[in-house]
């Protein structure tokens, strides 16, 4: 099963299998689309910081300090999709 496949890849430190899985998830089964989506999310995050806007660093530190690593990992995936959506270029309409 796929989770077992992933756990085996983690145990073997098979980074290529792991990142490929992430790309496939982000690209709805299309690996290249997933790669592009990762780039898109990071670019969107970068664009929002380029002019030194005020940010709530206390919130960030509190979250990192108070929330579990699992919750933060989950948040990481949420933030990916959040910034992809903010880009205005939403590919997740099931048509890939």
């Amino acid at each position, binding site marked *: *099963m*796929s*989770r*077992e*496949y*992933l756990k085996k890849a983690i145990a073997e430190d098979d980074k290529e*299998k792991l990142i*490929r*899985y*992430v790309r*496939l*998830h982000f690209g*709805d*089964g*299309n690996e290249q689309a997933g790669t592009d989506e990762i780039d898109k999310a990071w670019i969107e995050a970068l664009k929002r910081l380029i002019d030194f806007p005020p940010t709530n660093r206390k919130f960030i530190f509190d979250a990192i300090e108070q929330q579990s690593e699992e919750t933060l990992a*989950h948040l990481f*995936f*949420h933030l*990916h*999709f959040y910034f992809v959506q903010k880009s205005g270029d939403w590919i*997740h*309409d*099931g*048509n890939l």
Partner: protein
Amino acid sequence: METSESNQPSDETRDNSEIPSSSEKQLRPGLWDVVNERYPGSMIHNDDFVSMATLDKPLGECRLGFVSTSGVQSIGSMPFDVVHPVGDYTFRRVPSDTPADQLEIHQLKYPTDGANRDVNVVYPIERLREIAAAGVVGELTGNLYSFIGYNMDPRHLERTLAEDIADAFEEEQADVVLAAPA
């Protein structure tokens, strides 16, 4: 649902010709190659089949349940977790008298354009009410059910989500359940 865990070839080396099917015919040859290419190791392999159940009373006297992989849920309920890399193994109860315009879809992996215009194309709640009113079935269960199809551990799905939904239908005293993929 029974699943054999023995003698399973690895996901990458599985010979798809081993996979039996109803009528012993694979209707979409090559499908599993595509799925395994896109979602490595995601396919479950069942060696055992559940025998076909028979109704013990006329359909017109049966309480009908419905379950769908469409990710349809009542507005205001906790959205399905469409971002989780391994999937969401929860389900939502949708009261069977819910107005169609009080439903929404949380799902990324199938085209929802049509369903957003008319949810009945994936979650035929109004059609089901119509056939119940017409006496085709006796009545609907109090709740209909929904989950999302992006679940990358089918065995976990089988042993948790599927069992939970089966238990829920038993509580609902369903005589028959219609299951529909999205």
